[in-house]
């Protein structure tokens, strides 16, 4: 928002443009934090632990 000489507020056209989804993602530190924990937790730790639990016990 900005003001003209009469003190009336007007909306800058640039402000009205929708923010692209990717920029919204990159501007959200807590969503990034969630993704940054979830991806390695699922693909590295949880998947890895599941594979370890499936190793047969030696007889």
């Amino acid at each position, binding site marked *: 928002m900005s003001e003209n000489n009469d003190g009336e507020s007007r909306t800058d056209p640039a402000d009205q443009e929708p923010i692209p989804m990717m*920029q919204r993602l990159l501007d959200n*530190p807590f969503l990034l*934090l969630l993704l*940054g924990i979830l991806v390695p937790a699922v693909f*590295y*730790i949880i998947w*890895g632990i599941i*594979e*370890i639990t499936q*190793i047969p016990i030696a007889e």
Partner: protein
Amino acid sequence: MANTTEFRTCPTTGLKVDLAAENLIKANAVAAIVFLAVGGLFGLLVALTRWPAVHFLPADWFYLALTAHGLDVLLVWIIFFEMAVLYFASAVLLGSRLAGPKWAWAGFGLMLVGAIITNIAVLRGQSSVMFTSYVPMMAEPPFYLGIILFAVGALIGCFVFFGTLVVAKQERTYQGSIPLVTFGALTAAIIAVFTIASGAIILIPTLLWSLGFVSYIDPLVYKTIWWGMGHSSQQINVSAHVAVWYAIAAMVFGAKPLSEKVSRMAFLMYILFLQLASAHHLLVEPGFSSEWKIFNTSYAMYLAVLGSMVHGMTVPGSIEAAQRARGLTKGMFEWLRKAPWSNPAFAGMFMSLVFFGFIGGISGVVMGTEQINLIMHNTLYVPGHFHGTVVAGTTLAFMAITYLLVPLIFRRELMFRKLAQWQPYVFGIGVAGISLFMMGAGTLGVSRRHWDMTFADAQLPFDYPAAAFLMMGLNGVFAVLATLGGIMFVVVVVGSVFFGRKLGRDEKPSYPEVPPQAAAVSHYGSSESLKIPGTVMLVGIFFVAFVLYYFVNWKYLSEIWPLS
């Protein structure tokens, strides 16, 4: 809530600096450098012992020194400095007050106490379990307790950083998106949270095991989760030192990223995929499927490598664009020839960039490939690789930005300027030599973490090739050179911080030169210039080296593992 935050305005950059954040940056940086000195000394002792002609320490002291070296430099020095980077990239670059400075001090206190406890535990001689502390080797309980306290302190620091981002947004201290250096620090903080959570998940039960409350820790589960901490902690470094590269490019040249969006996407690749590279430590474990190994270390890790290659192009590219805008347009490399090579901040940053890419980066991809990993798994190639990333990459970058922090944050004139000018070269060449010769010895099969490569008291004799002994001797020589560079750094920084001339309230430091355009470090925006022929040439050289080295290793594998 009454806002009693005190600020000062930096006379050089015009940045608004929260004094509480400034004091925390100072405290964390000083603690970091103390532990770098201690850990570096232990590193010299390790290198002198692995130098066959010197073989300095007896076996028990060797493993003690190796444990202390790993802890103090891989974890303590780096994480303390990263806390300083987080506070700088949030409060200072966003012109905001720091969220919860008392919490930040509590975190600092826990980190300091934890680091001291673990060091004492190691020096007592009953916890020489090395940095990895693989079970069933058991250390004394204070060893694990110290690391846990240190990690909790670091976690508090990370949440102070996140809190500061919230405060800055609410109080509108910046417009639009956060600047790229802050985004890089955010990446480091996110990876740090995953790292510390992994550490807590495995080290708390291990502490209870060492106290006798838990009877058994599965070694493979331990290794898997521990590397979620052990390797990811090095990924915090990568994110932080890439942020530092961008910061130095901005502060020395007024350089803006070529494209802020592209660089942010490269950091997103780190957030999503960099931690998965932890799996390369488990590539020879029979308990995991090839799908798990290859997905984590190849497909996913290559996306993070793509991020590194983007940064590897855009950082020098942004410097070239800034230099060309100043009129240095002759030929392909005038911008680089006439760069300020006597400014230790630039020299250290640029060598960090080159060594990280050519030594640490390429070798990391080679080690992350399941088949060719077999040539060098658990050999000295591994420490050769991570000395290329963590020491030539991260430590050199952190040393470089310290030359800017001393005048701008500590407000002291830099002392011993000639020493400061030479320091990045002495340290950088020393560390590059360490990395290359360890990698060479590892390729010849020399195992890591072994006290005696001659196997003098072994019942079954074994001889490494003579070239391996040469490599280890050269490794020792370059370790001495790197130690000399480390001592030069400590002398310059400690001397300047405690005895350097105090700068007046509005006085600008005379050295290193920081132009008024340095404020670019705190703004979101791109140079949007694609006239970077010199950088394109450098990237071309990198790709040729990358492809050649990658295929040389496949050729080598075919020779030691004949299929016909």
